[in-house]
């Protein structure tokens, strides 16, 4: 009984924290962007403008939940749910601390990759069901971008798997006791992080949305809470990629003992989330074909090379 209860507490606790973090990111992003852009940002509602989170969420709930008459209704409603479900399910395998993890799958990493691949359906279906030309263009861009970046996202992580000898995220973190994998796998980290940005389609890889070109890309027709789902899905995605990066390359919960492991994890993850926002404040957006070219011609060969070199070195060191 007590074990089941602990599970429930962990699951509900993580869900609660994640959804709140995603909502809080509305405020964090707007305030940080403002800071970097010589502005104030939302600072009126509540202390430091924190209540903007509440106001924004309420606004999304109370907006008319509109489905355009020309849209494919069922698919249109389903699409935003897909992204949130996929991202939330991915969090099941994240080791937040030695004892806070929903399930330690022995194929944890593959599960994460699988889930993030499923996330692309949300964009494609949403763009398709909207029956709008801008949405369609956005969906096409999104699909091709995510499918291509998926390929070497997985490949770039294989170095970590080889070093650990396991797909379990818990084991991967444990394996970094002596040395964080960022030192052993710097190339793998860079490629994974770039692919991660593409995966969350944030600037500079926000090509599926590309505001100045495609209005709002695949979610042009969405409003109210259905748009809110895409919105929350994006912030959850940022949190997910940051958390995974920390677990895979930055020693997860590991850190000097004066702070509890979970705090170390949160600090590191926050750092990456801020980096995501900083990227948005600083970089322009490449063109769609340039992005694909960069992926297939630069990142893919590089990740293969990384795999080859890592494998070679491991073989060499393990020789009797």
């Amino acid at each position, binding site marked *: 009984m007590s074990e089941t209860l602990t599970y429930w507490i962990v699951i509900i606790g993580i869900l609660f924290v994640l959804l709140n973090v995603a909502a809080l990111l509305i405020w964090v992003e707007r305030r940080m*962007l403002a800071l970097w*852009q010589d502005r104030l940002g939302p600072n009126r509602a509540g202390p430091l403008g924190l209540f903007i989170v509440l106001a924004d969420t309420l606004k999304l709930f109370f907006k008319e939940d509109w489905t355009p008459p020309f849209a494919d209704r069922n698919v249109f409603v389903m699409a935003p749910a897909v992204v949130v479900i996929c991202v939330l399910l991915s969090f099941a395998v994240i080791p937040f601390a030695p004892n806070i993890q929903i399930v330690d799958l022995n194929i944890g990493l593959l599960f994460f990759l699988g889930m993030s691949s499923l996330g692309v359906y949300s964009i494609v279906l949403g763009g398709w069901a909207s029956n709008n030309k801008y949405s369609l263009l956005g969906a096409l861009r999104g699909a091709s971008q995510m499918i291509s970046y998926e390929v070497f996202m997985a490949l770039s992580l294989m170095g970590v798997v080889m070093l650990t000898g396991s797909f379990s995220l818990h084991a991967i973190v444990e394996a970094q006791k002596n040395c964080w994998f960022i030192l052993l796998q710097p190339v793998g980290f860079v490629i994974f992080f770039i692919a991660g940005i593409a995966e969350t389609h944030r*600037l500079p890889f926000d090509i599926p949305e*590309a*505001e*100045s070109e495609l209005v709002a890309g695949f979610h042009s027709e969405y409003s109210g809470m259905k748009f809110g789902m895409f919105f929350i899905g994006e912030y959850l995605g940022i949190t997910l990629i940051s958390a995974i990066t920390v677990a895979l390359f930055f020693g997860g919960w590991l850190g000097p003992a004066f702070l509890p492991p979970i705090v170390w994890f949160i600090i590191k993850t926050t750092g990456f989330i801020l980096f995501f926002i900083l990227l*948005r404040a600083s970089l*322009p957006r490449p*063109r769609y074909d*340039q992005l694909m070219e960069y992926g297939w011609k630069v990142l893919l060969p590089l990740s293969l090379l990384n795999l080859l070199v890592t494998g070679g070195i491991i073989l060499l060191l393990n020789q009797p």
Partner: protein
Amino acid sequence: MNASEKLATELSLKFSDSVLTQQQTADEVATFWVDKTEIIPVLNYLKKQSAEPFPLLYDLFAIDERSRADHKTHPSKDFTVVYHLLSFTRNQFIRLKIALGGEYPSAQSITHLWPSASWYEREVYDMFGIRFEGHPHLQRILMPLTWQGHPLRKEHPARATEMGPFKLWDEKVDTEQAALEFKPEQWGLQRHSDDADFMFLNIGPQHPGTHGVLRIILQLDGENIIDAVPDIGFHHRGAEKMGERQSWHTYIPYTDRIDYLGGVMNNLAYLLAVEKLAGIEVPDRVKVVRVMMCEFFRIASHLVWYGTFAQDLGQLSPVFYMFTDREKIFDIVEAVTGGRMHPNWFRIGGVAQDLPKGWDKLVAEFIAYFPKRLKEYHNMVMRNSIFKARTVGIGIYTLEEAIEWGVTGPGLRACGFDWDMRKKQPYSGYENFEFEVPTAQNGDCYDRALVREQEMIQSLRIIEQCLKNMPEGPYKSDNPHSTPPLKKNTMQDIETLINHFLNVSWGPVIPKGEAMSCIEATKGWNSYYMVSDGNTSPYRSRIRTPSFPHMQMLPYITKGYTVADLLSILGSMDYVLADIDR
């Protein structure tokens, strides 16, 4: 023998007197009446055969002469079509006029000579009902397709109150909607090719990337642009028509709003034409003050362009920094003029007030502050490799193409041609300033950006010279046409009293004549061609804006690029809709 006489001799050797007669105007532009059947050979000669050709069609417009006060003595009784050409080798404009008779006359189209004549002829058709034979697509351009009448004809009402109450019946909604529908066949566009169905994507009039109410219809194969059709006129406010109703003085605020980022620079273009008509010489201090304010607005306008260009390419931050700097310029503008974007501060024969005490300190502070910021922006935007990837080699046109399509300003200089009106045909004392004319070689989006960026540095140099050499003296000419006229002698001299009384009650009466100005505005060359029939308001005011031909060129330069490139091209063009539609 001056240039104008030389040109007259050259033309009289080529064409007989029945074809060509010269007219005297208040400006220095050689003006000829041409027999309307002979206009094509004359234009053809000027463009192609003359030893020193006129390759640029600068402007094309019409005048409704029917109610002109000096009607009787005038060669044209009903309508006149006016062509302005520019020769770079001679550094000279030429003005050709053809007289057309009848209610709804027609003329020959010159689109086969200059592709850029297409939109101008459509505008003339739209505004006057003059048809052009041989035009490939003579359709309204600025007014809605459903509009009744032709606005610049004298019988067309200028005020909404003259036109009866507006009612939007369901029927009208339907016809208006139907008129907005895009039918590719009308534009000679195919719906399918051998191996693809094309998509027609309607960008605008409400779209975050078009910076205003501009509509572009794209013919797409995937994301590749096969063709584009710009649809303009959503921002048309009838500025030329209003000129015919306002007094010479009260028209100034309307000019502010033509290139709404250019502020007082628009006033200058208008006033130079009026001052030529009235024969007003402005004092030196006025010239320098005007130059200084214009250059401030050039920087302000370029800053808006710079920031929004980066934003169009997805870089979100620069626009905030640049608008902050623009605020600093507006602080100075506000201290000097009391206004910000549209200060309406220049007056006929001078400026509204003298510079305020302490202006020099504000200007000096800005001069010390700004270069550092420009350097930072250079690193942030121009040296960014993604920015380069999005702009280098995109939207290229050659110098020949630019001239053929009437491109002026930074877009022309980005093709490697250092033609700046401030240097070549100096006005308002620009000949006394030291500055360079930045150019670039490739004519792509990046080069156009580079030229504008460098221009800001040069503008700052000019402002610095204004600060150091500001002459003392009056801020207004003592010519009686100056508005408002100087009051100092009114109590002693009856003539001055009469002038003053008339000027403040009616506004000035500008002598009969025609004159054109041409200035290097923020976006290219801006001209006002003013016709006076000796009245308190202009008989015709023609505004030639640079953005109009630039936008016309869009389909030509976007073919073969992608939707994302369209944004680079639009951004690098630096247009405002008010400048296109007027």
